[in-house]
């Protein structure tokens, strides 16, 4: 099959441009910058979930060897961007991001209550254990099920009529009652944490009284720059944020979290650069998580398998001080053709820290429920689940009544089913046994909305014809630099080795953070247009040069048709062209630069834009022990033109691995008597290990979506995980006849 972004069949993928640095240890991560005079901060966290601090006994810690400061709300330097403390003190109103060391209130277990700064990390850890905090405890509520009746319409939604989280209905709200075949079921996703292998870390350096540099693990240097400038009331340019390499994030780095502010405070207080690295246990309460979410679905169809009505209700948890909303029920409006659909989303505030976006936020949660329900209804209809989905294929967006900008989900289904061997699936559960194991096949669809944000890129060509392209974008793992290199190389007709891409520094041209599968669509477009602009400049210069007759004695580029192999060519058949280096040399230029901004246009109102995909999963279930092993996965995505197959494939594999973890093991369990997590290390919070991961086959439709951006490429990060948990759960049902609606699917639920 022709690869869209390749010039020919032999034009294979680029390997990661930073692969050597990463595997050889040469890449510098946030905690690894060798800053002179560096000291270390360690957080002391609360062990109650609600109440207030009555005393902090820190003398022992202060006099411990190497300790420079013990900081708490009693002595923390003021954060000028925060309002002055009210008297009498009041709990923060809803909508207030948690302010570290601000007052005595405790909002959640694991909340930072003090911080020790010492000359070595070991001494700081030791002294942190010597800080004694006493509390006035209040009754906390952390149990979702026990409190679910208190869930309500988010204030955010009450205020905004146009909020997508408003109750939604099309057709007849009571139509479900008249569906010929229908199912009703409740699905639960427990709290799950991102837990990237690299913990969150920061080094904060006050270069001067009003100048701050932070080396911080985050997913957006520009937004971090803005947030820090606001908090510390500094001119934006006086704050620089560096985040060049990131050991995974999955959404945990989208916000600036309290520990980042704490490290900046500490550096101010001790007048030294301060490093703060979260402990693995602190990663459970410091950087957000995928919220516990309960969903109820009622869906019904005619006997011949046409969807008649869908009712989807979802309730997510949030903290007492902030509302975190997710797209949980939204996919149900757009995924299938169905005349009668209603959705409802509610929020339950609890005494926990605020959740955040985690790969496929809302959609991974909602599509687990929807795709399980579709499987349940297909079974009730005695229909093949893929056939059922095809029968209800949405040819246009049924929610917005707009044409899709492009949709090749049908091709995805076909390709995936063929490669997987879906025709061998038996409708009757538990009908295949292999070597004593129950064999099950399952599938699910995937979708994720298209996002494109204004982005800038700068392309600079040097005298030798090589190019550096820059943008303040990020790489949390997908291989951003590699994909951007490929875009630049293609536009400029250059060997990729002659292209260098720089990212992860706030002094680079403006770009959005890496989230919402928006990097290729947004930043890729900016790189594309910047390189196009550079190319135009080169061609114009080449034409000028030819006109003067100085390009090697003969006129070779009269019309500047294009670029190839580092040369500008004209339209003549035996045109030899002129090299970029010669063009710059002739014009006595040390470099040639183009900076461009790219943004979406009116196409957003003319088309509905989504990435689509599907997953096919085979599981083996041990009938005696209830252990589930995924033995094979085929995943297929429709994301427009693929920029770089090799890194795209890795991204798809990563999403499937995350989905297997979500389906089978990830579960942050809390002891509600204490409001405290009891799974705070990798021995108890299980993520997949190599032995859990089978061969994963990845396929792409690879057809450009001409309406979305110059490359015709859409985002891949989220759809790689959305739907996977549903496909696994459906395969488990096919293997065992047991429908597990509460994740994760552990052996205790199957025996």
């Amino acid at each position, binding site marked *: 099959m022709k690869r869209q972004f390749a010039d020919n069949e032999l034009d294979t993928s680029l390997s990661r441009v930073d692969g050597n640095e990463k595997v050889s240890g040469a890449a510098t991560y946030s905690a690894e910058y060798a800053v002179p005079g560096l000291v270390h901060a360690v957080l002391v966290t609360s062990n109650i979930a609600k109440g207030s601090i009555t005393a902090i006994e820190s003398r022992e810690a202060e006099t411990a060897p190497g300790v420079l400061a013990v900081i708490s709300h009693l002595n923390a330097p003021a954060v000028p961007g925060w309002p002055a403390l009210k008297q009498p003190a009041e709990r923060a109103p809803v909508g207030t991001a948690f302010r570290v060391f601000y007052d005595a209130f405790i909002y959640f277990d694991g909340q930072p209550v003090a911080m020790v700064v010492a000359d070595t990390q070991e001494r700081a850890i030791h002294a942190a254990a010597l800080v004694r905090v006493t509390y006035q405890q209040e009754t906390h509520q952390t149990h979702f099920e026990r409190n679910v009746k208190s869930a309500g319409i988010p204030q955010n939604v009450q205020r905004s009529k146009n909020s997508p989280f408003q109750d939604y209905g099309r057709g007849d709200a009571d139509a479900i009652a008249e569906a010929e075949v229908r199912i009703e079921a409740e699905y639960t996703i427990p709290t799950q944490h991102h837990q990237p292998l690299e913990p969150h870390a920061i080094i904060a350096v006050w270069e001067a009284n009003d100048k701050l540099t932070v080396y911080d693990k985050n997913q957006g240097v520009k937004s971090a720059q803005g947030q820090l400038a606001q908090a510390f009331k500094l001119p934006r340019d006086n704050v620089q944020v560096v985040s060049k390499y990131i050991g995974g994030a999955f959404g945990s780095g989208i916000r600036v979290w309290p520990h980042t502010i704490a490290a900046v405070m500490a550096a101010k207080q001790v007048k030294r650069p301060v490093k703060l690295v979260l402990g693995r246990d602190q990663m459970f309460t410091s950087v957000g998580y995928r919220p516990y979410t309960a969903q109820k679905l009622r869906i019904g169809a005619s006997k011949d398998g046409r969807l008649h009505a869908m009712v989807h209700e979802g309730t997510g948890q949030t903290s007492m001080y902030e509302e975190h909303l997710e797209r949980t029920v939204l996919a149900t409006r757009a995924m299938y053709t169905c005349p009668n659909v209603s959705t409802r989303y509610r929020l339950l505030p609890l005494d926990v820290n605020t959740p955040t976006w985690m790969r496929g936020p809302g959609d991974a949660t909602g599509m687990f429920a929807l795709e399980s329900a579709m499987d349940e209804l297909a079974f009730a209809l005695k229909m093949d689940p893929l056939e059922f989905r095809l029968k209800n294929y949405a040819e246009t967006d049924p929610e917005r009544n707009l044409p899709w900008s492009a949709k090749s989900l049908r091709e995805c289904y076909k390709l995936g089913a063929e490669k997987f061997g879906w025709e061998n699936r038996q409708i009757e559960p538990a009908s295949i046994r292999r070597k004593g194991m129950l064999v099950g096949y399952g599938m699910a669809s995937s979708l994720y909305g298209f996002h494109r944000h204004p982005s800038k890129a700068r392309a600079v060509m040097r005298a030798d014809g090589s190019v550096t392209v820059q943008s303040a974008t990020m790489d949390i793992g997908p291989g951003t630099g590699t994909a951007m290199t490929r875009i630049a190389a293609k536009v400029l007709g250059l060997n990729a080795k002659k292209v260098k891409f720089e990212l992860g520094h706030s002094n680079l041209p403006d770009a959005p953070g890496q989230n919402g599968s928006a990097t290729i669509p947004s930043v890729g477009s900016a790189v594309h247009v910047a390189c196009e602009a550079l190319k135009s400049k080169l061609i114009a210069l080449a034409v000028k040069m030819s006109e003067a007759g100085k390009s090697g004695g003969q006129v070779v580029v009269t019309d500047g048709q294009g670029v190839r192999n580092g040369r500008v060519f004209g339209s003549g058949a035996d045109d030899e062209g002129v090299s970029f280096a010669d063009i710059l040399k002739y014009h006595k230029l040390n470099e040639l630069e183009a900076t461009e901004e790219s943004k979406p246009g009116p196409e957003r109102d003319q088309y509905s834009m989504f990435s689509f995909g599907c997953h096919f999963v085979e599981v083996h279930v041990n009938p005696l*022990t209830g252990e589930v092993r995924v033995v094979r996965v085929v995943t297929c995505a429709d994301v427009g033109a693929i920029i770089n197959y090799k890194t795209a494939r890795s991204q798809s594999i990563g999403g499937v691995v995350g989905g297997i973890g979500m389906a089978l093991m990830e579960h942050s369990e809390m002891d509600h008597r204490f409001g405290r997590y009891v799974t705070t290390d990798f021995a108890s919070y299980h993520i997949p290990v*190599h032995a859990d991961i089978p061969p994963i086959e990845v396929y792409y439709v690879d057809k450009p979506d001409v309406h979305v951006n110059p490359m015709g490429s859409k985002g891949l990060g989220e759809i790689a995980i959305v739907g996977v948990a549903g496909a696994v759960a459906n395969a488990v049902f096919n293997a065992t006849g047991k429908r597990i609606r509460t994740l994760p699917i552990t052996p205790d639920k199957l025996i």
Partner: protein
Amino acid sequence: MKPFQYLRPKTVSEAVSMALDNPEAQYIAGGTNLIDLMKRGIASPPKLIDINHLPLKKIEHRYDRIRIGALALNSDVAQHKLVKTRQPLLAEALLAGASGQIRNMATVGGNLLQRTRCSYFYDVALPCNKRKPGSGCGAEGGINRTHAIFFNGSEVPSCIAVHPSDMCVALAALDTSVVVAGPAGERRILFKDLHRLSTKEPEMDTTLNPGELITSIEVLDNAFTGHSHYLKVRDRASYAFALVSVAAALQMDGGKIWDARLALGGVAHKPWRYWAIELMLRGQPPSEKLFREVAEHELQSARAGEHNAYKIKLTANAMIAALKIAAGIS
């Protein structure tokens, strides 16, 4: 982590006298458990006695037994020809434990002494009778999905945590002695007497006396080869502690079971040797029906908490599965 002093003895007797002179000191070998405990503030020994340089690594066969030095690494033992041919059950159990990296550090002696992985034991902010006697058992009314179902008769346990080792489950099924050096010289402890149940002093995991140092284990030759299996049920395929594990070994002759060994992991405060079932199996021709009968009959004595009732059925099923494999019936 609290600062500590580091001592390095040159001989076993020097190590023992160091330990006797410093009652709060702890021996350290691979450190795969103790370092974690020190980092989490659960153990804070003022002195560490590093025994890694003592000559206790040897694996050899003598007369009727394999003798494995206490400092032999888990990975070396699992791959050793003597162990693989004479005690395959032990090799299998070792390879089911931890990860390749940890097995490369962990020693046999340390494996015997690893402490429970109960979440309440691991978090100093939560109650735990084992970590802080008298503070209560957090797991009893808390999250006890991975906790014990077998106890010491009808007595109320002060700790419902389970012993985490895979190796120990195999050793419990085999005829194992633990050789220890102490102030009065060497003594042998039968494996079943090494670990304790949790009735009164849950902070005490073993019956070792102050200063005593494990120097080796001895496993008697047997006729189980070809009819043993270590089955581990866990939440993921590798690097997870057992929900339930079973070490099953049979001596078969003429279509009948002549001798049977059965030990369970993940179900009690110590590796749980199932003598009653062993007796019931002797003299019987193996069948799934027989295995199911004995397993289900015996499990009437199990007692579950709020989240681990599944373990009763899982234990029965795991025993059936392991015995079937050991007996060679599909």
